């Protein structure tokens, strides 16, 4: 199965990179989120920018299949869920992917995160009909939309701007912000705890 081989290859690379950039280390997450050390923020912004430029440039050159895009629906629950995730991310230092990688790298507190996560996901499965009935999951602003209209994509654009050009421009903007963002904006210049 080609898809299973690709899952092993891309998934393995993703896990290794998350480990190497410090994303699965709660010290780096905590020091990023309390704005004391933005090194990891620079890494993340550069990654989004790099991915965006490569994907949209690849689409324009006909090398990347536009059909591989997968845009999620916008609804009020995206924002509310984001708030919840942000709170739990700050408290624990883990998000779903990095918590799993942290546990695999030997961090035992991440096992408790995974146990809590499985219970939280189960709680959502149980409460999904009630959440749905609030209307919080109803699409807003067009639902599955991109900021510009991407040629050949099945998604509408929020604006009529060419989505691929806009994607490259935003990607470059992410890269510029990654470069300009200072590593430290508050606190003294003491090193982050080594592992």
């Amino acid at each position, binding site marked *: 199965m080609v898809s299973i081989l690709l899952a092993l290859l891309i998934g393995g690379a993703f896990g290794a990179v998350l480990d190497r950039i410090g994303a699965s280390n709660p010290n780096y997450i905590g020091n990023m989120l309390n704005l004391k050390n933005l090194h990891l923020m620079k890494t993340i912004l550069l990654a989004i920018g790099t991915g965006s430029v490569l994907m949209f440039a690849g689409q324009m050159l006909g090398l990347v299949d536009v059909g591989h895009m997968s845009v*999620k629906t916008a609804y009020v629950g995206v924002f509310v869920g984001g708030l919840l995730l942000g709170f*739990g991310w700050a*408290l624990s230092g883990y998000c779903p992917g990095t918590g799993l990688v942290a546990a695999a790298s030997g961090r035992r507190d991440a096992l408790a995160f995974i146990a*809590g996560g499985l219970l939280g996901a189960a709680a959502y499965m149980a409460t999904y009909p009630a959440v749905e009935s609030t209307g919080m999951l109803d699409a807003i602003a067009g639902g599955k939309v991109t900021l510009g209209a991407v040629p050949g994509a099945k998604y509408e654009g929020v604006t009529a701007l060419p989505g691929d050009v806009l994607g490259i421009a935003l990607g470059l903007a992410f890269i510029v912000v990654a470069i300009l963002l200072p590593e430290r904006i508050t606190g003294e210049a003491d090193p*982050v705890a080594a592992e």
Partner: protein
Amino acid sequence: MVLNWKLGGVLLGLVFFLAVLLVKPIGVSTQFVILDGILWNAADPSVVVQTEDGAYTSTNAYLAKSSGKYAKSVSEPMNYSFVFVIAMMIGGFLSAMARGGVSREEQKMPAIWRANFGGSTGSRFLATFVGGFIVLYGARLAGGCTSGHMMSGMMQTALSGYIFAAGAFLAAVPTAMFLFREEG
């Protein structure tokens, strides 16, 4: 020490690009639901059922939504997204071993927690357990997490990715500033 942001950022960006080039954008949090479904279905095989036309559905409304997409993944765990997450853990494990592993002190709890809240593993484990519950409930409510919404979503210029990132940082930054006065 971690990779310099220039190398780390380019490598991470390449992984997200390769995923969308070869298969589809990266996402993780759905697989917590799939594992829950697998465990639940193992305890009670009536949870996921196959209809006469071969499609899957479930007694659970969430597993049954989108034409039984999640119910199908529960019955067939050897699918791309589930194997991806297992491979991610293997990759993380091998990478950590290759750099000498995580120190014993850090395995118990991260230095930033110890610096702010002392060395009680009980309180740290309670915090990560509660954190995990809130993170996954929030991720499923949002329909994605840091990987699927923030990274993959913003990379594709998805409006939903920006909405998610705004919510996540709006909550995460004040929480971290309140909790972690000491850098650790």
